[in-house]
């Protein structure tokens, strides 16, 4: 499974959405199911899956599906 597929699967499992729904508008602000509790679960899943530990600022700024990819790249995760 590629890193992109792993990334998508985390979102699909956590938010119960189809792959087609994961686009630029899938964000903390625009998605009702993305609340603060889900946010911490998302961060935990991402850290476990990619073997990283986010800086606190990145946790706070991890506001969307697409922005998340850019943040993960900072930690050496290749897409």
């Amino acid at each position, binding site marked *: 499974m590629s890193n992109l597929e792993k990334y998508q699967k985390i979102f699909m499992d956590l938010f119960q959405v189809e792959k087609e729904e994961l686009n630029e508008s899938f964000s903390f602000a625009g998605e009702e199911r993305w609340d603060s509790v889900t946010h911490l679960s998302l961060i*935990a899943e991402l*850290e*476990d899956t990619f*073997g*990283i*530990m986010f*800086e*606190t600022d990145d946790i706070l700024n991890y506001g969307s599906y697409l922005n998340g990819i850019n943040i993960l790249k900072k930690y050496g995760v290749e897409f």
Partner: protein
Amino acid sequence: MKTLLEGKVGIVTGSARGIGAMISQFFVECGATVYANDRNIEKMHEWIETLDKDLQKNVKPIEFDITNSDEVRKEIMKIKQESGKIDFLVNNAGIEFNELIGMISKSNMEKMFQVNVFGTIEMLQTVSRIMGRQENGGSIVNISSMVGLRGNKGQLVYSATKGAVIALTKSAAKELAPKKIRVNSIAPGLTKTDMMDAADLEKLQNRINNICMGRIAVPKDIAKACAFFVSDLSEYVSGQVLAVDGCTIM
């Protein structure tokens, strides 16, 4: 005692000397593996050399500054990857400057809050993210002080930092309990460390006179109380502050 902490892995900060060194030593004597943290790695190696060979292999020195977020995150991640888990954290690192009101240096005040409060929070926040994903959670022990509970002249800032440690212990315990992470604090009274050798003996005796048990604490007294909080003996105990002060009248 030899099996009290068998199989447990964790971190003790400020381990190169004094109370931190004794906590680490006692923990490995009880079967734990200790990642012993300090900024002074040379002092740490000197201390490790004094331990029995059998114990040395279970002490893993790690050098980082608990006030540096990046270092904390990277080193905690390394420990997790190496050991697979973190069962305990003892936030022992701290600094102390005693100054009378009117002579309190802002620089010393900032240093004390940086290490004693912000560093403690940094460690607690980072390690609890690991513990929160473990089936058995973990145990965090914050070393505070009796002066954080009762205050003392000449220690306004130090007592404020230790009061903050007590307050954050209680809040963290409430927030982390659902993740099976216990957070407790040890409040040592007057404790014999290297720094005390330079103390005024007459003043010291006056303070000892206020200790009902008739002696000051030794670092092992503190280490034993820490071992209780880290062990499964205290599995239903969280948010508590335990005074280890020989029943002192302050």
